[in-house]
């Protein structure tokens, strides 16, 4: 059954809030503002849900889950099970599941549902006509406040021959109908690492090329080291400090020339996946007409309140030059509603922003890194608990990784944390909550948890802090108390 064609509504006068881009930030802003009784217009040129739902987080997480299942099947013996005979990956079934999940989740934010909430949904290319108006599909929409949340798209790296040879990005990799036998992944950021591992586990022979000395850019060295080991264990052929010089087609093959310092090598593959970052979607918006300062490469300039150089226009998410926090696009949407419609003074910098790379193990972080803290002259100490110290991690066969809590030295104040664990994305939330609410390590150490759970690692790190404090007076008092009790 196909959906009936969409007809854009007639504009309802001046909108309190006009939103361009129906990704996480745009959708939350639309729903929040509408719930408060604002007159809201939402413009999307493609699919509701944005990159996250359609090309990014959701499809990749779905495929990662299936790939993890195959890994677990192969490792069954380690868990006291039997390795199933003849494990064969049914790639069409994997992709069918991806589409099914995408369809299920997209129903939550359908145009009909948004319309029922009172949001005017427009499909088409939005273009500013002036400081307070936008055109879409031949209509002129006027606004009091606007939010640009058009996101970003995959970078097309200037590698000779790449365009001619053809390549995949996160935008089209989920359209594959068969698993590439040999896959070259260019880029060792979150997208490259997640998909390299997933495709390797689904049976591709993966070569991962990263032009930096470690994966995940500025992530903690120890986390990147563990990830590197995990990827190699999955059979991925890792090339760090390596650049892809050129690509060419030879018959059915794609041949890439690589160079690491002065060492040259050549790889032959069936597909190339590029994950080297994104560029903001600012083209075609005619931002000049609205007086919105921007840069084609970096994006729209915003202040800490997410306001652009036009005080009526706000921006959030990957389209911004500053504060690109894709993991809190929803929060950014709420900040914009508060600041744009209700004279709010909410700052993006006040947000505690956790993020996670969904490899196996996952790598999650919140707050400051040690190097960042030291750059700011903040004395910092790290309390580390290895996952192999955690009973539940051992029973689950998930001992790889650690919890690191970075605190201001001499205090229990949490500056940041890095978690590498099978479920790091979940574990980090407890630390984010503590940071958001000002809880220190003393408080975290006192939190009771069901035993055995992997979050014991957080309690143990907090307890390590408590034990590390000078205990002389406390110990003396306890001894005196017991001595009195014996008398």
């Amino acid at each position: 059954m196909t959906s009936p064609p969409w007809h854009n509504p007639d504009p309802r006068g001046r909108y309190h809030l006009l939103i361009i881009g129906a990704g996480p930030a745009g959708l939350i802003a639309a729903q929040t503002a509408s719930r408060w009784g604002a007159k809201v217009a939402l413009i999307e040129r493609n699919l509701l849900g944005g990159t996250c739902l359609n090309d990014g987080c959701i499809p990749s997480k779905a495929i990662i889950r299936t790939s993890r299942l195959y890994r677990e099947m192969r490792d069954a013996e380690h868990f006291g099970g039997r390795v199933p005979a003849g494990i064969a990956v049914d790639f069409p079934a994997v992709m069918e599941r991806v589409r099914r999940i995408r369809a299920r989740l997209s129903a939550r934010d359908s145009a009909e549902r948004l319309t029922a909430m009172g949001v005017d949904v427009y499909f088409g290319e939005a273009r500013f006509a002036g400081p307070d108006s936008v055109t879409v599909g031949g209509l002129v929409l006027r606004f009091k406040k606007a939010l640009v949340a058009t996101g970003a798209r995959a970078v097309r790296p200037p590698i000779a021959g790449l365009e001619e040879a053809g390549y995949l990005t996160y935008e089209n990799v989920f359209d594959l109908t068969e698993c590439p036998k040999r896959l070259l992944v260019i880029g060792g950021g979150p997208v490259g690492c997640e998909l390299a591992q997933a495709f390797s586990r689904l049976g591709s022979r993966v070569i991962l090329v990263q032009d930096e000395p470690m994966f995940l850019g500025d992530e903690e060295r120890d986390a990147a080291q563990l990830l590197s080991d995990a990827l190699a264990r999955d059979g991925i052929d890792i090339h760090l400090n390596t650049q892809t010089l050129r690509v060419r087609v030879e018959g059915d093959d794609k041949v890439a020339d690589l160079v690491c310092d002065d060492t040259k090598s050549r790889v032959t593959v069936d597909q190339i996946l590029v994950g080297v970052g994104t560029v903001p979607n600012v083209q075609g918006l005619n931002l000049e007409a609205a007086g919105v300062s921007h840069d084609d490469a970096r994006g729209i300039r915003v202040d800490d309140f997410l306001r652009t150089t036009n005080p009526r226009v706000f921006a959030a998410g990957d389209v911004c030059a500053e504060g690109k926090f894709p993991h809190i696009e929803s929060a950014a949407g709420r900040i914009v509603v508060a600041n744009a419609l209700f004279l709010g003074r909410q700052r993006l910098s006040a947000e505690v922003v956790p993020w996670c790379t969904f490899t196996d193990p996952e790598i999650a972080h919140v707050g400051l890194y040690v190097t960042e803290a030291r750059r700011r002259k903040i004395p910092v100490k790290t309390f580390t608990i290895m996952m192999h110290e955690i009973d539940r991690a051992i029973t689950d066969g998930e001992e790889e990784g650690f919890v690191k809590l970075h605190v201001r030295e001499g205090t229990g104040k949490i500056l940041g944390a890095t978690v590498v664990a099978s479920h790091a994305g979940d574990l980090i939330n407890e630390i984010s909550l503590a940071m958001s609410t000002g809880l220190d390590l003393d408080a975290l150490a006192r939190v009771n948890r069901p035993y055995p759970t992997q979050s014991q690692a957080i309690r143990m790190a907090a307890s390590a802090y408590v034990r590390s404090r000078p205990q002389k007076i406390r110990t003396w008092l306890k001894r005196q108390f017991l001595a009195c009790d014996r008398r």
Partner: protein
Amino acid sequence: MVSLFARVTPRKGSDEDPMLDEELLDRLQGGAFGYFADAINPTNGLVADTSRRGSPASIAVVGLALSAYTVAVERGWLAREDAARRTLLTLRFFETSAQGSAADATGYNGFYYHFLNLESGKRAWQCELSPIDTALLFAGVLTAGAYFTDATSTEVEIRALSRGLYGRVDWNWARNGKATVAQGWKPESGFLHYDWEGYNEAALLYVLGLASPTHPLPPTSYAAWTATYQWERIYDQDLLYAGPLFIHQLSHAWIDFRKIQDLFMREKGSDYFENSRRAVDVQREYARRDPNEYGTYGPDCWGLSAGDGPGKRMMRVRGRDRRFFEYTARGVPYGPDDGTIAPMAALASLPFSPALALSAVRHFFELYPEWTETWRLPSGFNRTASGPDPRGWISEGFFGLDQGVAVLMIENHRTGLIWKLMRASAPIRNGLKRAGFEGGWLR
């Protein structure tokens, strides 16, 4: 009197006396020094990187050899004249060998290539011009300059060459305009991608670079290097973290870090010597826990460090893929850990934790009694990875770096000879002071 044939450890249930510590150390130190007698090219003083056939020379191993000669003189293994002659031969080679940007030169800007052809002294393979290995070489050069203080023409020339060679190193060039020193340079592609960041073995490099009378590193470079340190509590030990054990040892082979502190250590109330002691405890605790269930680690079987390995291969072990490495830097607790122990790393921990180090070494001899034939420990063993030996993989031959560090660390533990020499060496003193070290013997 201890029998000449006393066992390193007594047989279970026997009343044999174990070999006394001093005798054991004598044999281990002598065995390690024997490497340099075997591996030297007597025509140019270069020393092979490993005892394997066709091995090139390593400039770091030459630096260790130059230092080890002084130990050998004090121990009576080498006549002073003989040691001085070998030293002069070596220094003359470095003085006269080709410096320049040609791909087959011996060095450039006063630095030297990591590996040199043992015979010709020219750059081996397409290896990098190496600041850290040059620093290790110059630690040896300066040790020789500090030790050979007699008025003989040989020793006068040694001192002059020591000063001259050190003075011509353009340490500042090695920053490539950045805050910290680059890991290397190649004539084919320029500076290597990344710099010396995080706590690593580069302390010696910075100290020598800062003290240069001609092309010094700026003090800001040391601050930039230490800015990437992490002070961490692991297994209830507070320490400046570095995974592989050799990082906690290499600079200590020459520099006596006891009770002297830079800004970072002053803030933490510790020093680098104490830090290395704690690193030993962390290594031992990791081995006790044996998180990867190799079953071969234990309180006396520890030592994850840079060293030889079973080779690049995968094996299924208890239903999981285990990946093995060739020569690499293994570390705890974050890995990589393929089950390979570097016995020399445990031995080189002697100055920091003598009892633990000796207990581990005795255990190694229990596992491999045949090692008493040479009293020389191999670079690594791995009882999980298969090899020609039914007890698993054992590294073939010997690595000069391991043997040299063992000679120096045993001597530092026994008499502090190298530390004393270097404490009197102006480049070491000045470099430490410029790095902000205070206290202890620097007062």
